[in-house]
């Protein structure tokens, strides 16, 4: 319960600081100006209230992006018994990270482990390994492991050698083979390393656990977008994970213990931070087709 409290408190603090910043405004000039918010709403604001947005400079952004959130240790738990292949996670992710339709930071795969075993859907984000094969091989330190466990990319530094793609056993990485989606729209926008946007031609991209949203105290996009309660996300140091659909918070260790969680291809020694709960007692029947992907 203690952990529940601290997460709740963080939420309240976040909310109240937002409110207080609004109520601070006292002077009004009467001149109104129309603005489009980031969520697409048209609003009217008094001119006096306008001040430059608090955007860190590129180098500042890269610096804090490399360091990560102090004291945190992010983990994700994916409940395979709940996934019905709704693909809302994939959609949300592609919008957030400005990806082309064929680029996936998270990909819902149709799996069948052996010939006669039950097929199931498996959402597959980057595993944010604690022994990441990808960061090891990067010649320029463009992909790196942060303090809080997230494996990030700096696409201002990436040289596009694609060694990390070859090194990743989870096929988690994508490359910008052409100009990225909506390249013209985002031209001149300052690069945000924690969302890896705008994407850049000739560089790598991959799942970042929505590090920009984590900094704002929000859950990753895929976790929040899921309608079926598949994802749990949280901090291993706090031993708490929150479900993106039900917003229920529970003990991380208890969740993985009671449900016999496993990590993907643990025999490779990559030590993933993404845990899977086995597809037992399925909430939805499997309706996909298993394609023979190996020939």
């Amino acid at each position, binding site marked *: 319960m203690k952990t529940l409290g601290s997460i709740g408190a963080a939420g309240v603090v976040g909310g109240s600081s937002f409110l207080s910043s609004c109520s601070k405004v006292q002077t009004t000039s009467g001149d109104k100006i129309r603005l489009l918010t980031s969520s697409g709403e048209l609003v009217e604001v008094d001119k006096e209230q306008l001040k430059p947005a608090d955007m860190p400079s590129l180098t500042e952004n890269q610096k804090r992006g490399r360091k990560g959130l102090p004291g945190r240790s992010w983990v994700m738990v994916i409940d395979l018994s709940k996934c019905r292949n709704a693909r809302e996670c*994939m959609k949300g992710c592609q919008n957030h990270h400005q990806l082309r339709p*064929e*680029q*996936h930071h998270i*990909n*819902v*795969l*149709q*799996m069948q482990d052996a010939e006669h075993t039950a097929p199931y859907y498996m959402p*597959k984000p980057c595993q944010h390994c604690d022994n990441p*094969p990808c960061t*090891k*091989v*990067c*010649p*320029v*330190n*463009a992909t790196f492991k942060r303090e809080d466990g997230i494996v990030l990319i700096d696409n201002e*530094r*990436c*040289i*596009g*050698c*694609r*060694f990390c*793609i*070859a*090194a990743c*056993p*989870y*096929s988690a*990485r*994508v*490359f*910008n*083979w*052409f*100009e990225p989606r909506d390249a013209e729209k985002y031209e001149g926008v300052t690069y945000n390393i924690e969302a890896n946007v705008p994407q850049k*031609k*000739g*560089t790598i991209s991959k799942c970042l656990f929505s590090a920009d949203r984590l900094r704002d105290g929000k859950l990753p996009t895929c976790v929040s977008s899921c309608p079926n309660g598949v994802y749990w996300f949280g901090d291993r140091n706090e031993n708490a994970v929150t479900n993106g659909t039900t917003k229920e918070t529970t003990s991380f260790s208890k969740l993985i213990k009671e449900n016999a969680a496993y990590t993907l*291809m643990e025999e*490779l020694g*990559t030590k993933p931070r993404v845990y899977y709960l086995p597809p037992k007692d399925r909430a939805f029947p499997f309706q996909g087709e298993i*394609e023979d*992907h*190996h*020939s």
Partner: protein
Amino acid sequence: MEKSKSPEESRKLLDKITFDLTRSIVKRDELTNFWYFFLIMFAAVGLWGWFIQIRDGLGVTGMRDYVSWGMYIANFVFFVAVSLIGFLLSSALHLLKINWAKPISRVAEQVAIAAVALAGIIIVMDMGRPDRLLNVFIHGRFASPILWDVTVVTTYLTISILLFYIPLIPDLALLRDKGTDDIPKWKMKVYTLLALGWKGSAEQYKLVYHAMRILMLLILPVGLSIHTVTSWLFAATLRSGWDTTILGPYFVAGAFVAGAAAVVIVMYAYRQRYNLKDYFEDLHFDYMGKLLVFVCLVYLYFNINEFLVPAYKMKTAEGIHLRNLFTGNFSVMFWLAQTFGLILPILLMLCKYFRKPLPLTIISVFVLIASWVKRYIIVIPTLEHPFLPVQNVPDHFKHYSPTSIEVMITLFSFMAALLIITVLAKMFPVITIWEYAEDKGIEKEIISEPKN
């Protein structure tokens, strides 16, 4: 070494040797012009392809997120492999005092320089952001095998150029002093400049021998590293097909096969074109044939280990990879490469007849092509079969086939390599004159005496 001759005989012989070995420098006919035109035209087409690739992105190639290394990387490995012959012929055999290889060592160095220089260029052409090449030096992380590769490739290129240049200095001086009027004036100027005021004193020769010996020793570990490290680009990953411990020696053995075949082809071209039958003798081809059989056998041994051992066990992912090579999509390439690049050449070259110049050259052409194909099926099949299924992507993500841009850029690399070899052959004697003359019993004093 033959016993010394009288000064008169020596001078006459030296004049003949110099005349024969400068034929490549003097000769300029329609064929030369056509050859240059051919090479430069195709190289230019390739550069145009690279321009399009930089403009539109690496998406103009057949590579996608799963098969993210394609023909460029296969070609890179091929060129690194070919370059290794410099290490074997002009250093290892030299140090072992195996004399027959001496006249071939400059050919081997030409091939090595051209191949390793192009390997460096190809890798830049494969980059998504070649404009950020300097990041490798600014932000270089020494834990990445790419950094090791950059280090050894540049070191190997430097040592190979020095190993080409230093034994060349006495030759340059000889041409400066004794060169005929047929040699274009600008070339003579280059010789004078590059000869660095060589006088031919005993002390100077001592320095040359000393430098050559140091370079030959230095190139041994560097040469071995260059291809071992290149194999580690693959072996350092977890992918089935690459994740094996013998990849280093397997690559090195394969490199000797490719390089020896390339040297035989170049040797034959010089022998025919510049009328050098008395220099690249049947005996040299016979020995090169024997050398090729030997390295092929070593490579065959590694192939058996590389394929038979995992095929015995057929672990899930390895099994998929091996089935794909033995009976699947890549089986035609796999069996053609093994048969025409390894097994048949070994059987044929065991007979004396097939070690004669022409048959050996034809065999070498097959071996060289098979070596290229072999690199292709080392790189691509592994990437087509990752551990997790390839889903929710367009069909062309699932199977790789190179595009015309990739073919153009690959052609560029071949043309540029041939151009480097041609320019070196047209600029400098293809055999070290002073070393050759000395072996024929001509005294050093006669070699360095000025023209009378």
